[in-house]
């Protein structure tokens, strides 16, 4: 993985090969779990970074739930390598790994990702069929059991924010739900999207503030300050509903309601130039700055057990 080109976008096969290489190179730190299968029967892989122990408190990071947001899967690859490097050099997240595990799902929506590489670069949803409709796919960020089907999602299968027939109808979502529930000790959950430079916390489906809003807001401020310190990239932060718009059935609303206090979602670069077509030369700077914010969140979760 030292010769892997982190400054380029890659196909799913290349990313899965990278994951296998990383596991092979670091058998005492990294393992690969298959948490389920996608609609089109692709494996849903999660990398587990652990220095030992059973059922330790853990941090979850996922990238690429919206398949066309290519900078997120690419950043996920970079994060994976960074965790290994930090551990080897005893710096950065090495101290976090002493007490916590990290789970990283790099290609959260593999069917959609393959579709963006082969048929339609602008595909965002899953690839499930919708009975009674010619339109394909469900927005996996509206398919969670948190205000499911309320305002802020669409009941029309032909729209980009179609919530699906019922909560967790998408195996890509259900697999994470099952994993989170069976693990039972996940303390921070970060779902990564692009673009528009935001760090958001619950809620999206209700205007009622999250009980931990003040702490989440203060933590967001710290995380964003760390992110901005590297390249000056400006981020806004706040709850989903107050910062962007009402969105029901979203990932981190569900995780928060499951008791995962440190639930966040990122919207990575960019603002106003390339959108989902961020040039590959910006992958590493994007991942680097995001990593600083992630580290703040992870360290906070480690230092504030609950």
């Amino acid at each position: 993985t030292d010769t892997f080109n982190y400054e380029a976008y890659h196909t799913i096969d290349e990313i899965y090969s990278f994951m296998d290489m990383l596991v092979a190179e670091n058998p005492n730190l990294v393992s690969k779990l298959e948490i389920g299968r996608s609609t089109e029967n692709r494996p849903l892989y999660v990398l587990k970074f652990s220095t030992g122990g059973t059922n330790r408190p853990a941090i979850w990071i996922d990238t690429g739930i919206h398949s066309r947001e290519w900078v997120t899967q690419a950043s996920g690859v970079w994060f994976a390598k960074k965790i290994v490097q930090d551990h080897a050099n005893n710096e950065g997240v090495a101290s976090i790994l002493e007490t916590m595990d990290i789970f990283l799902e790099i290609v959260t929506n593999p069917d959609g990702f393959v579709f963006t590489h082969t048929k339609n670069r602008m595909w965002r949803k899953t690839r499930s069929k919708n009975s009674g409709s010619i339109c394909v796919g469900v927005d996996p960020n509206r398919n969670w059991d948190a205000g499911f089907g309320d305002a802020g999602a669409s009941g029309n299968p032909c729209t980009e924010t179609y919530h699906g027939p019922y909560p967790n109808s998408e195996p890509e979502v259900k697999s994470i739900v099952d994993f989170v529930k069976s693990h039972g000790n996940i303390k921070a959950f970060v779902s990564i999207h692009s673009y528009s430079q935001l760090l958001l916390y619950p809620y999206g489906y209700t205007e009622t503030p999250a009980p931990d809003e003040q702490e989440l807001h203060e933590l967001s401020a710290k995380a964003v300050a760390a992110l901005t310190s590297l390249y000056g990239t400006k981020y806004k932060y706040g709850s989903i509903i107050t910062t962007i718009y009402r969105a029901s059935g979203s990932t981190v609303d569900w995780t928060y309601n499951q008791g995962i206090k440190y639930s966040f979602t990122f919207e990575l670069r960019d603002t106003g130039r390339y959108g989902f077509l961020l040039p590959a030369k910006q992958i590493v700077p994007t991942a680097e700055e995001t990593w600083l914010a992630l580290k703040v969140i992870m360290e906070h979760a480690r230092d504030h057990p609950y």
Partner: protein
Amino acid sequence: TETFVGHQVLRVTPQSDEELQKVQELQDLEHLQLDFWLAPRGLGLPVDIRVPFPSLQAVKAHLEASGVSYSIMIEDVQALLDVEQMEMLRSSRRLSLN
């Protein structure tokens, strides 16, 4: 493979409730096949819309008729995709050589 020749991404930043409403109206016009990269969120916040070539004239006319100003964020989506594809090819060739 779907191509995006002539598709543009327009950026609109609504400055009043009327402008916001005009942009929101576009969301209901399914026949235009618009793809909202950034959906309307509020005043002063950008809305980015990928507009297929056949719908460009209608969308621009809708905005201009209402006095809503916009900028072209991406002139031709396919041109950017071609560059992206070329870079990926170059990168995978380099990988094979390694």
